[in-house]
């Protein structure tokens, strides 16, 4: 399968990338690692006329101490996250989940920013970032703005990014080395989660994120609320599917996904 023809341009910096996308208009797309976009282009579900390759923008590949948060450059690869020492101590959940994205080959190419900007509710890291209430730094022609993770994901493959904006940084709270659980259910190794659940302690509370339980990555707010009211793990987990809209596909019905969410939330909470 070969993508439809396109013009290829490569950006050397974030500023150049934003200028190139402005120059080429709405039919242009940013390409990072390509792990999400290239399969869509090969199926011709995405047919950009211009591809702006940001994969070489090295100054957007970093993990830095931001004081009260950890700042992650949008073009940091999953491989670099899963082996990062600072994340191991300051936000272990991001490191651990990055190590479960796809397979080795995918993690050698795929980036956290690419995964976020793609906006696929079946991706692992977006649900983690929603649970952590991460902040996304988005850069456009008129400068940078901040978007809360909860406001960023707006629909299936739809985000708050304007066509001329580039996601440049992800800021995650310092939640420590441990205090999280991640459960991913799939039939074959390396597949997207049929349902995934992340539970993580943030401040004094417990947050729960859901993978592939709706049009966007979701917070299991009913579970969080029950826990805050003193419910047991087992009772709280039974609230896992409240307010979700799980999809139907060849792997699972919505009813099965709702059941999986309850089981996986319980397991993730028990791992805390």
């Amino acid at each position, binding site marked *: 399968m070969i993508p439809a023809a396109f013009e290829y341009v490569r950006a050397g910096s974030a500023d150049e990338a934003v200028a190139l996308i402005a120059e080429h208009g709405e039919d242009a797309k940013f390409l990072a690692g390509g792990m999400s976009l290239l399969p869509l282009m090969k199926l011709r579900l995405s047919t950009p006329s211009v591809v702006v390759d940001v994969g070489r923008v090295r100054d957007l590949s970093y993990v830095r101490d931001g004081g009260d948060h950890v700042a992650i450059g949008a073009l940091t690869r999953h491989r670099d996250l899963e082996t990062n020492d600072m994340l191991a101590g300051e936000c272990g959940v991001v490191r651990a989940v990055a190590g479960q994205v796809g*397979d080795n080959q995918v993690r050698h190419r795929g980036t956290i920013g690419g995964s976020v900007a793609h906006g696929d509710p079946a991706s692992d890291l977006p649900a983690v970032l929603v649970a952590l209430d991460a902040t996304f730094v988005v850069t456009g022609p008129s400068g940078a703005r901040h978007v809360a993770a909860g406001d960023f994901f707006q629909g299936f493959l739809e985000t708050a990014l304007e066509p001329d904006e580039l996601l440049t940084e992800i800021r995650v709270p310092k939640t420590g080395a441990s205090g999280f659980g991640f459960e991913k259910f799939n039939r074959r190794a390396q597949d997207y989660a049929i349902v995934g659940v992340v539970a993580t302690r943030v401040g004094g509370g417990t947050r729960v994120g859901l993978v592939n339980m709706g049009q966007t990555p979701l917070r299991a707010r009913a579970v969080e609320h029950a826990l805050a009211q003193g419910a047991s793990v087992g009772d709280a987990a039974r609230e896992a599917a409240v307010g979700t809209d799980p999809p139907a596909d060849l792997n699972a019905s919505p009813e099965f996904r709702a059941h999986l969410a309850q089981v996986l939330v319980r397991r993730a909470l028990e791992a805390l």
Partner: protein
Amino acid sequence: MKVMMTVNEAAQDHDVEPRTLLVQYLREACGLTGTKVGCDTSSCGACTVLVDGESVKSCTMLAAQADGVSVTTIEGLARGGEWHPVQTAFHEHHGLQCGYCTAGMVMAAVSLIDEIPNPSERDVRLGLEGNLCRCTGYHNIVKSVLAAAEQMRGTKQ
């Protein structure tokens, strides 16, 4: 567009369309057909090659993205007529049946051993999750990779 890269330590320079995939570049422009196209959807790993030493699926990377990098394919592993230890181990431990997945398996294993020189069986099984073998030969593939890692550690000491 001009796409230049180093493949198996030899300079390559070809004029290709921007939509050319790395696997097409390797097979059709460079004539290196050891790298196979299996599923063509980045699931099976048959097209795995090393880009700057790390395993990638060459069906899901544009040749243009590899412009200027160093690529190693299965043809580039042997040295002076001697197989790479991973190739030898696959031979000795019957790590293949039909052989279609083998080039990708071997390249993924080389990258895995580079990252984890002393892998456990679990490390190998997880590390090769991106490579499918439809002859269900995983057991001997895992044995091959463990044996190759051991042999390579011995050589380094």
